[in-house]
């Protein structure tokens, strides 16, 4: 559908000040997107598939281990998912165009086209692309749990966060029918659930999703917060995921990764 209207540019703001590291987003993503069950051995082999993961860092652990006083150690959490970079390093290196940038700001993976060279994962600085080392299987009891709107991926291909594109499609169809652009609220109402599973599952409202092209949307407003930063900004990937720094009253200077 070719129209002249301004496209959406989907983005997310991650307010690290609110993240408690509860992993609800990880579980929600797992359930929504038919991600294979990660067994303990998958984690040990470093082959687990988590489209969103909570990275946990200990601050001050080294000094604390020397002194024996662990009371000053701080746990830092950062949810990392595909940053849907505007200037994505993973895209130009795929020999078969299995990954590209669509006109709504999403970095899209085409499962059918992927041949599994794994170049994209090497060239992803955030490590958010996952390779299917095995054919995914689910126990009989979970077969009815699989989401019918999401493809089950086969062995030997890459997969990654889609910003739950299956949810966005609903609102998109409505827009096409009505011939006008919907703002985040209308879009949410039309699609039933417009934000990705992780954002909806987050109990502390850490993950906020919406249209970056709409100056009045919640994400756009939050992205302008003076705590904002982009992950590994020096690489120049221009992510569509904006992080808001944690407020730490003890810290003398800004603690970012």
């Amino acid at each position, binding site marked *: 559908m070719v129209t002249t209207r301004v496209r959406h540019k989907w983005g997310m703001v991650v307010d690290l000040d609110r993240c408690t590291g509860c992993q609800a987003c990880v579980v929600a993503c797992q359930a929504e997107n038919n991600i294979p069950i990660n067994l303990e051995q998958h984690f040990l082999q470093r082959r687990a598939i988590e489209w969103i993961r909570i990275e946990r860092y200990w601050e001050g652990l080294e000094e604390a281990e020397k002194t024996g006083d662990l009371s000053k150690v701080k746990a830092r959490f950062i949810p990392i998912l595909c940053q849907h970079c505007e*200037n994505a*390093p993973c895209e*130009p290196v795929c020999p078969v165009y299995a990954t590209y940038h669509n006109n709504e700001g999403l970095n899209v993976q085409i499962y059918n086209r992927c041949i599994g060279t794994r170049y994209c994962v090497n060239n992803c600085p955030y490590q958010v692309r996952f390779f299917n080392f095995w054919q995914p299987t689910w126990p009989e009891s979970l077969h009815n749990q699989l989401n019918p709107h999401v493809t089950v991926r086969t062995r030997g291909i890459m997969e990654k966060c889609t910003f739950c594109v299956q949810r966005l499609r609903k609102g998109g169809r409505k827009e096409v029918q009505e011939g006008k652009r919907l703002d985040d609220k209308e879009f949410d109402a039309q699609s039933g659930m417009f934000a990705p599973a992780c954002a909806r599952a987050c109990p502390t409202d850490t993950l906020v999703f919406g249209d970056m092209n709409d100056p009045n949307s919640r994400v756009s407003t939050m992205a302008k917060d003076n705590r904002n930063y982009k992950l590994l900004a*020096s*690489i*120049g990937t221009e992510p569509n995921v904006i992080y808001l720094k944690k407020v730490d009253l003890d810290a003398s200077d800004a603690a970012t990764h």
Partner: protein
Amino acid sequence: MRQTQQHTNGHNGHHRPDILTKTPQQVTEEVLGGTFRAGSRFWLVAGVMFALLVLGVIGFVIRTGDGTAERGPWGYFGAMLGYLLTTAMAAPIVAVLVRLTKAHWGKPIVRAAQLWGVVGILCMLMIIPLLFILPSASGRNTIWFYDAIRTGWPPGAPHAWVLVSFIGLLVLSILLVWVDSIPDLATARDHAPAGARKGWYDRLSLGWEGTTKQWRMHRTALLLVSVLYLMNFVYVNFVYSSDFAQSFVPGWKDSIFPATHTVNGFQSALALTIVTAFVLRTWGGYKDYLFTEQFWALGKLLLPLSVFWFYFWFSGFITQWYGRSPAEHGVLTLLYFGPYRNIFVTSVILNFVLPLFLLIQNWIRRSILGPTVVAVSILVGTFLDRIRLYNAAFSVPNADLSHHALTPETMPPVNFPGGADVLIMLGAVGGAVFLFMMATRFVPVMNIWEAKEALLLQRIVPVLKAQLKAIGKPE
């Protein structure tokens, strides 16, 4: 195989290969005659070059008025030193490589190429003011990993190490000329009329008599100095291109750049050698020593090195282009697409496109004029290229040195040459040529001992119906 010879025959008819056909006595007389006496034309050119050198000194004095706080005004001065490093100081490399590969065609040109090493004196003088404008190593990118706060190691970085490399360059270049020419200095000693000149020949030839032992020592010493010169040349290029170009530009992290600088040096060295050989043949009276063979062989080498010019540039460029990070984007804009685009495109044409399309044709390679024209194009192209590189690097102000990347706001404008810059450029080129010309007054510009060696080891032999050249390969 017989058939291949017939094919050669068919191409060349009964052409007899060019070969030095003098007697050893004639070689000695002619070469020494040219060294002891020079015509008025020589002195006229030398005078003009000296005048240019004086102008350059005036330009330098004007420049010192700008002080050493900022590097911007010194861009052309730095570029000229870079240019001398990649041309005059690189020329001895041709001699070194010819010696190491025992290329028989190179014998008549090695001395001329080596004599350019005397420009090391000028380089040494030029690096001294540049040491003052080189900022401290701490707080910016530097190849010396200098960390003033934690280790203070290596001591004196970067200034001391730059100085060491240039002292090495000067000492080795003079040593190379000297060691190589000892047998010829002895010949000159034996033939020179009594006087101060003869005394110097006597002192510098170290009692050379041409015994087997002396020849063996000479060969070893020459090999050693040659290899040391080559290594030091690579080191100087590494230090100068990194400390005086790369580390001045925020975000410029380019591991191929010193190698590119060195390879540009090899290319310009060949070009300068060709031009020198052309001048010697046309105006220097060495028509019977330099043949098409020398120009053909040098042209053959110049072709791959011109392709390398592009290859090394492209290898660096494609990597940064694909990187697309803000730092790399800033560097590419500064060096190639922004203020210096036109000068860059011109140097690509002069250093790569023109040489490639001319030298790829054998009839152009196998001539005297063809390689010379290409060589001039390369010398001009390298001149422009050095001006682009060093001016771009020098024009970044001190305040921006610690930035992560160049942004459109901090992108420095083009540094157009002022009057003093023009004088400096003329002075550097004129000074280099003047030094070379003065050196040819003392050291024979044609290698007497190697010319005689060629007389022994090169013969024309009949093979079937053709006359071909046979080259002796001792041991």
